[in-house]
């Protein structure tokens, strides 16, 4: 980008999301799309975050609520299975944690520097239902 001057931009305040032409982009996985250099897909916004959502696979029921509600498409899901959080684009808003319906939640917010192993070991345990008397 830095080699650009006023005379090298396309006119108008436009950006092209892809290199060249593309058809049916929705059918191509994000990692396989030919995004252009100026596309924000290649730009990390990780440093906007103060807290990060961590994902506990053991508790997830793959309801896809987090995938639907994430405003930045930062929940990576494949074949309707929750896979991971895209930490390059997640801004730490916490909506995924809010909408997670399990008890305890399969997504929880932790301080940005928190070690994932440590977080998983501290995760709230599922309360065992006490056996009913008699």
């Amino acid at each position, binding site marked *: 980008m830095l080699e650009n001057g*006023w*005379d090298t931009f396309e*006119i108008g*305040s*436009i950006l092209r*999301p892809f290199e060249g032409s593309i058809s049916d982009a929705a059918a191509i996985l994000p990692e396989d799309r030919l995004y252009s250099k100026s596309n924000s897909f290649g730009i990390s916004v990780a440093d906007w975050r103060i807290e990060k959502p961590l994902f506990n696979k053991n508790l997830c029921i793959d309801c896809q609520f987090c995938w639907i509600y994430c405003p930045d498409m930062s929940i990576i899901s494949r074949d309707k299975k929750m896979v991971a959080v895209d930490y390059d684009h997640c801004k730490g808003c916490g909506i995924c944690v809010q909408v997670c319906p399990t008890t305890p939640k399969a997504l929880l917010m932790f301080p940005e520097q928190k070690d994932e192993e440590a977080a998983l070991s501290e995760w709230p345990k599922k309360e065992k239902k006490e056996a009913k008397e008699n």
Partner: protein
Amino acid sequence: MADIFELRDIEVWDGNMAASHALRQAQVDVVAAYPITPSTPIVENYASFMANGYIDGEFVMAESEHGAMSCCIGASAAGGRVATATSSQGFALMLETLYSASGMRLPIVLNVVNRAIGAPLNVNGDHSDMYMGRDSGWIQIDCYNPQDVYDMNLVAFRVSEDHDIRLPAMVHQDGFMTSHTAQRVKTLSDDVAYDFIGEFKPMNDMLDLDHPVTHGVQTEEDWHFEHKARQHHALMSAVLPKIQEAFDGLKALTGREYNIVESYTMEDAEIAIVCMGTSVETAQEVSNELRAQGIKAGVVGIRVFRPFPLEQIADVLKGCKAIATLDRSSPNGTVGALYNELAGALFNTGTHAVLTNNIYGLGGRDLTKSSIHTIYRDLQANAQAGSPTTPLQQFIGLRGPKLSFF
């Protein structure tokens, strides 16, 4: 397919009707509008043409002028030929979006029927709205009568949509004095008018789904300056030659001659009035009367206000001894804008001409021939003295004690 509208060679149209027919003949894809006096009949006539089958495009009734121009921006970015009309307070409400249109390089044609801006509330003509738009990055073409309005609309589409330009254009006419005064207008047939403008050629249109494009992106201190510089460069270097080319084409087609700067008996003029809108023709009449008395008077009309034809104006005025700039907008705290423009154009040219400023005609106050005679008399005295014999800025046609500054 829209029906052909049979026109007589000469129609009796006011400025608004002339604009409506030009929009119809341009086969505009989208007109989004929120009517306001005195521009209302432009879109009203257009809507009636549409209801009667003479138009194929879409007509969107917006919720405000801000909404109207926003619809125009969306339709233009989508890849259509787009136009609308407004005046005064409506223009002021559009102002924010006007900068978006030019910054996004969208070739929208906006008919501005010039009207005063309140308070006090006033529906009559002055140039306050036109002046408000002068830093917005639009091409601004000024008309003096309904014929001009018809012709300049055709020119505006052709120039604005050119891929070397891609800048929106305003076509200005004086509220009521032009917009509601019916005069003879020589017409072109629908085919000939459309061919003069040419087929709309989309560029970076959003409906080209194989080449997705994000319009109106954000840049901060890193690239904003470069984008604005590119826009200014197009306005400064490409527009005037293309307008001249369009004027030449129109002359070949119709015999009607337009110029970027309209000069009238300026070849040997010693005193000159520089003005815009309907005042140009009034000043021409007065200069004829003075010429009959052997006084070397001339008139310069600004046809293209933006980009400002600085060199052409300096050239036309190079032999003058005294020049008056007439501003039909309250300068509110300084000299009139035309005075500033002319001073800028003439400075560094070695001219010794005396330059003065008259503020006139606010809110539709009549500019009488006797007022113009007075201005020319002042100019004669200035030319003779070689220095201003009056204050630099004088209000003319004003009730109460004489008002002047500097």
